[in-house]
């Protein structure tokens, strides 16, 4: 579906017949955003989630500023007191405002992308600017562009103080003391860059909607033990046995939700991609779509902050480390073990949060097709609800051999708790 979407967008760019609608602006820039997340080296899942939150907020506020049925997020999100408003009585074009805001946001948040990303941004920027301005008076264009950019700059300024604005060394700290105590995280690969874990301070970032990073803290994981009768050992054995007897379907599920950074849109991008699919399949207008994108972005970003807070609190051992030492030294995972502590599962926390946000927008028992990895040859998966998709995303990490069951179960619960804050945001009058 997204392949079609890109082609449609390119056809739109080539057609001078009529100006672009806000929905097209949203769809085009989000397509670029997802590709940039995949192809910008600093965009690990937490960083990607942050960008989806700010991008979603920019999209929603640009839309809400001209729509009396929508309610601004200013005053509801931590640290965001006010945002610029349009001049009363003046005419604005919704597509131009939205395009200016998203154009500015993508350039600001992806200033560090490579030459191809820069090239794509420049081409998109130029094409969309011309496309949205078609048939409009100069003063409307200028006023609309000015407002869109001003709005985005206010959001950018707010973003700078959240603790996640600067990423160095691709997120891996120069200095970090890896625990020598049993049961704690140790490096799981032999890449020099990843001998220290990813973004150990991400859990100290300012959240968006939840009051603080510990608002949805978790009980500890099962106590580490090398006793085969212990709960921990049983969970390790479950990972080992499951991995060794994976069915074809389980293998597909693991790969479908793998969402590796640098090779995919990442787990948060997977959920943003689902929203974009829904936008196209259900013909959502810009108001509905931007609300969904903002809610899911905020929920997932908070999900990662809350998850990382717990990860570095418990600093828990990965299955591959324990299993190789205690069960089978030749064992290996199906998926790449991420370079940071195990508990809780980041994908589960983010997915649990996304589920709450999307259920708030679309309702429960909402059926949809997930086409995210169609081009990767992993097919389309059908779900009868967001919850069903979340549960599959969670268990995929056990199939992949990278999480114990407790991290998945508790991760989903933490995500649900966090997501409820995003779901509670007042976004309609």
């Amino acid at each position, binding site marked *: 579906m997204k392949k079609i979407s*890109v082609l449609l967008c*390119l056809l739109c760019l080539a057609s001078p017949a009529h100006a672009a609608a806000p929905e097209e602006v949203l769809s085009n820039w989000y397509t670029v955003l997802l*590709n940039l997340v*995949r*192809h*910008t*080296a*600093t965009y690990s899942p937490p960083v990607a989630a942050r960008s989806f939150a700010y991008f979603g907020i920019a999209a929603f506020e640009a839309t809400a500023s001209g729509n009396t049925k929508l309610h601004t997020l200013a005053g509801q999100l931590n640290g965001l007191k006010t945002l610029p408003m349009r001049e009363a009585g003046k005419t604005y074009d919704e597509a131009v405002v939205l395009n200016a805001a998203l154009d500015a946001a993508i350039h600001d948040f992806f*200033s*560090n992308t*490579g*030459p*191809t990303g*820069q*090239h*794509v941004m420049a*081409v*998109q920027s130029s094409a969309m600017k011309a496309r949205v301005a078609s048939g409009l008076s100069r003063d409307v264009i200028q006023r609309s562009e000015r407002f869109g950019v001003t709005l985005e700059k206010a959001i950018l300024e707010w973003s700078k103080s959240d603790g996640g604005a600067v*990423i160095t*060394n*691709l997120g891996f700290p*120069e200095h970090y003391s890896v625990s020598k105590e049993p049961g704690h995280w140790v490096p799981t690969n*032999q*890449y*020099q*860059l990843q001998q220290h874990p990813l973004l150990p301070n991400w859990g100290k970032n300012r959240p968006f909607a939840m009051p603080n990073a510990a608002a949805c803290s978790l009980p500890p994981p099962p106590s580490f033990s090398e006793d085969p009768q212990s709960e921990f050992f049983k969970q390790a054995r479950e990972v080992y046995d499951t991995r060794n007897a994976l069915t074809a379907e389980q293998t597909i599920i693991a790969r479908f939700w793998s969402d590796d950074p*640098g*090779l995919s849109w990442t787990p948060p991008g997977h959920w943003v991609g689902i929203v974009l699919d829904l936008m196209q399949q259900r013909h959502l207008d810009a108001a509905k779509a931007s609300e969904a994108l903002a809610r899911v972005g905020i929920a997932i970003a908070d999900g990662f902050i809350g998850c990382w807070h717990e990860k570095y609190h418990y600093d828990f051992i990965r299955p591959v480390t324990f299993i190789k030492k205690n069960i089978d030294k030749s064992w290996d995972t199906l998926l790449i073990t991420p370079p940071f502590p195990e508990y809780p599962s980041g994908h589960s926390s983010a997915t649990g949060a996304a589920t709450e946000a999307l259920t708030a927008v679309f309702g429960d028992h909402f059926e949809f097709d997930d086409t995210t990895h169609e*081009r*990767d*040859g*992993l097919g389309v998966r059908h779900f009868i609800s967001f919850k069903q998709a979340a549960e599959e995303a969670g268990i995929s990490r056990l199939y992949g051999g990278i999480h114990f069951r407790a991290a998945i179960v508790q991760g989903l619960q933490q995500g649900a708790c966090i997501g409820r804050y995003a779901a509670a945001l007042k976004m309609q009058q």
Partner: protein
Amino acid sequence: MIAQRFAALWLIVIGLVPMMMSAAFADPIIPHFVDETSSSGIHSIYKGDWQYMVGGGVAAFDCEGNGLPDLFVAGGENKAKLFLNQSHPGGPLKFTEANNSGLEFDHVTGAYPIDIDGDGIMDLVILRVGENKIMRGLGHCKFQEMNSAWHIDGGNAWNTAFSATWEKGNRLPTLAFGTYIDTQFQDQPWGHCSDNWVLRPRADQSGYGDRIPLLPSYCTLSMLFTDWNRSGTASLRVSNDREYYMGGQEQLWKIEPDKPPTLYTEAEGWKYIRLWGMGIATADFNGSGYPSYFLSSMADQRMQLLAGGPTQPTYREAQFDMGTTAHRPYTGGDLRPSTGWHTQFEDVNNDGLYDLFIAKGNVDRMPDFAQKDPNNLLLQKEDGTFVEAGDKAGLLSFRNHRGAQLVDLNADGKLDLVVVTRRDTVRVWRNISDHLGHFLELKVQQEGNNRNAVGAWVEVKEANGKIMRRENFIGGGHASGQAGFLHFGLGALTETEFRVIWPDQSVSEWQKVAGDHFYVVNKDRSIVEWHFGK
């Protein structure tokens, strides 16, 4: 007979082994290079923007017939240049630019020398953004395009990789071409990789048949026909840039005579590995009897050792243990991850151990990766690990490097270095070390097809009781290749023995030769000493 002539000396050599063993774990000898770019007569800039962010290759081969490697350098948007080697043995590097060689094409990304028609004169495959050019050597450094005459489909793509092998029974080689991003999709390049392909000779060997696509293709930056399991039949290793593919991975193609190419699968042991594949180097640097591979990439580079034996192409990564991660600049203060391009195993200090060179340089204004990214010269120690010596060896450079060749440019048995740099002139360094070990340089040849014995393995006995092996291949690196003498360091040995496993799998006898000499080794004939100017 050479064997008799050196028999007595060989006994002395054997006597040296204990002495070498006692020094086995000493730090490696650091060679000494000097930058002779400004005095060398070489000036060529690899110019261009987006479509020249990759490529920038150099081919080293003798087109004059004097035994010294001449250099063909890609220019991107500039015309490519051929530089004729006027150096004297052991002397400064001196080149003059050839005029009207027939190779002065624009949009060139790289090149590989290969004697396609087996006439004893080296031909050249030129990779371009556009149509590749297959240039037949006419002698005296003149070349003629043969795309049409040999029915070679040069394609019309962003060409970035090449390799060749002689399949059993064929007079002509099988040619493999690797391409990068589909240029039709410059505005949305991700996920749009153009097709790689293979050309096989027609049954009557009069030229080539239609292209055989290697699908799926995943934006390839290096490919190499290599006999990974020593079966006598080379497979095609393909290193791909994960930046642009979707659903892609590293690839190993089975290329068996009279069968369509097929990919090795996970079920057969091939692991699902994804990286920013930029270049391939190979050598049996650990004495396993099988080739190991080094894959240049961004951040951690990869060193792959065969773990599955000859029946399974399963590799374990060993860069961490061996000290070859080369993941960030080793000096200069820029701590961001680095970007590797051309890579090559050679023995630069003639101690009988393979060393490793990696050309480095930012793709282009990528702020998350090092801008000051020096090339690596990793010297192998006796314990099999590697230690960085680029700066100490005089090779420190913070330019934006791409293709390269470690090659003996002045016939003194010491490997020199030529490196193409983006938006800057190609650099050449002469190895002026006076304290290295002894060397041996061998040029393997055979009559008829595959005149330069591509696919042969040459084995040389080393003082430490080990054997240094080389696969004679065409391909790999980053858009850069060479043809000519194969270089071996001998350490303290003043003579040694070597043998050749020829492409038809026949094995020569061990033959004794003196160190510090060049030999032409003709299959089924006695070896001939080579001297410059004779």
